[in-house]
């Protein structure tokens, strides 16, 4: 796991993190290309916004996978909520870009908003709330942190502290032999 381009055969862990890093790089590169296109003398091309609409969900999904990936388990059951949220964001932004602007006094309202606005406000802004924090809590012990994990870190910290104290004590003992 020395980087996205290591040449050794990836383990399960490496494969998940490597895929996440590559996806993150692609997402950021797509966003960069979208911004670069905006500097065109002919004005911002239509596809520049599409690059951001795809690049942002990919980058956000990738960095969440990178953070959640754990040992050989990778992201385990979290692949479902992560995929759901990336798809929701892509569909939300994509629908806002692709659907015709038909808002008017006779528009059908969805929970009080015209269709395209409802997709963005309720889809992009609220649906992930229903899924992600719940998924985080339900998988917390198996995927994020257990009491055993915390104890491992604390044990290592105690060892390091003891070693550091010994290291500072020894020179003094040498200077002042009994």
């Amino acid at each position, binding site marked *: *796991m*020395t*980087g996205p381009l*290591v040449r050794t055969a990836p383990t399960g862990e490496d494969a998940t993190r490597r895929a996440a*890093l590559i996806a*993150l*790089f692609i997402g950021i590169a797509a*966003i960069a290309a*979208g*911004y670069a296109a*905006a*500097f065109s003398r002919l004005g*911002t091309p239509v596809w*520049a*916004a599409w690059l*951001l*609409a795809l690049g*942002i969900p990919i*980058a*956000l999904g990738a*960095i*969440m996978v*990178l*953070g*959640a*990936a754990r*040992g050989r388990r990778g992201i385990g059951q979290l692949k479902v909520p992560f995929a759901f949220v990336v798809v929701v964001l892509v569909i939300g*932004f994509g629908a*806002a870009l692709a659907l015709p*602007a038909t*808002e*008017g*006094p006779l528009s059908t*309202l969805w929970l009080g*908003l*015209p269709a*395209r*606005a409802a*997709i*963005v*406000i309720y889809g992009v*802004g609220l*649906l*992930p*709330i229903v899924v*992600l*924090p719940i998924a985080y*809590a339900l998988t*917390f*012990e198996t995927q*994020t*942190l257990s*009491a055993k*994990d*915390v104890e*491992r*870190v*604390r044990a*290592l*910290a105690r060892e390091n502290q003891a070693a550091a104290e010994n290291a500072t004590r020894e020179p003094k003992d040498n200077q002042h032999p009994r």
Partner: protein
Amino acid sequence: MIRMVNVSALLQVALPNAARPAVVAVGIIYFAVVLGISVWAARRTRTAADFFVAGKGIGLVALSVASVSVSVSGFAFIGGPGFIYAVGLGAMYIVLPAAVTNVMGAWVLAKRMRLLGEARALITIPDAIGARYRSRGAQGLSAVAILVGIVGYMATNALAMGVVINSIFGVGLGWGIWIGMGVTLAYSASGGILAGIYNDVFQGTLMAVASVLVFLFVLKFGGGLGEISRTILAHDPTFLGPWGKLTPLAALSFFFVFSMGSLGQPQAVHKYYMLRDPLQLKWYPLLKTLGLVLVLLLYFGVGVGVKAFVLSGRLAPLASPDQATPALLLNVTPIILAALVFSGVAAATMSAANSFINIGAAIVTHDLPVAFGRRVKNELRWGRAVTVLIAIAAAITAQRSGTMVAFLGIFGWGLFASTLVPALAVGLNWQGATRAGAIASIATGLMVTLALETAAYRKVFTFPAGVTASAVAMVSSFLVFFIVSWLTRRTAQAEIDPDVKLVMEL
């Protein structure tokens, strides 16, 4: 999450004089509670760890509410609704990322930051960067970047405080600044982050209550969201389009900067160190996200509601979009609701100022000396002294040109995002990241942000519609981080200490 635009919007608001008996009374009660909490916290602050990270002893609910409080500034109450009033639903792309940012932060940063605190007794964000890359240079450079951002934020928050306090008590802008900074300083210097956290809990609760009440009032007054939408669609259908009056690129840019950029905001990330038990992180994203949704209801409700009320003639046309909240509060809602919201705005600016003062003091007394291989002997005493100096410097700067101060505040969010997100958020999750990559990325974020923002401020250069300096700086910083880490990848594994490696692998 919405500080980048906060001050420029809040500063340009000449808030109307709201000094009515009820508003003044609620304002006095608010300040009395803040001072009471501060006295209590000061008695419990005995060490530098108490002062900078509350002795790692904050419970889940308190931390969640406090984190909401520092994540939302006065912009959510004043400038934000005005922004919606001006450009329609496109302004929502600043707050929509809240649906993912908290849980994203939990997966990417919270566990590793909290465990690093456990393993190394770390107390600052540059501490974590220094430990991750075993590099005093990376620690020092990230400290400088944060300090530069804090200078701007502090001045703008001081000025915002002055604007709000002047509106509540009618004491004049200059006195408003000194009163606001004086109260904030009193609890920052005496009780450190402990006073800050418990004041944030009070302030966050106040903000949530005010926001929910105003939202419900707007819905009732407007006959429900459907009626409000119908009124707007009859006059200005673009307002309720998915991008409002912004271009798609501009709206999506907001979403990118405020989602990915949230991983580099020190006032929120720093809080991860403070949780008493790391296992309590389980419910942290859910609680914080729900809290944020409540606080942001006013942002949406007032912005859309006032637009409908003005279009239907129930409210007089606004002198400027930023008057949306004050006009609604002082002309339509019961005065007690106005009193709560004005105190809520004061709370938002003070909690932000306190948090930045504390982080700035930790950088000056802890990170910068460590970067030069030194240690300050009494970090608590020096922390208090530096806290006083930062507050005074911020208040003096805030008395200067409003335009200059607004400029300082605008780049804060982007600067934190571009300098910290790759090195910290990606670096703590990728063992292939290198010290050289981190330093190059932080330096790129710092230089690109300062250069582009200064060029834009001096009107040397104009970005195409939808492109912002913050976004360009963050993308550049990411790409530099990846490329330099890849070029120097042979050193990657050797730069990670075993305990840090364990934290990264868990």
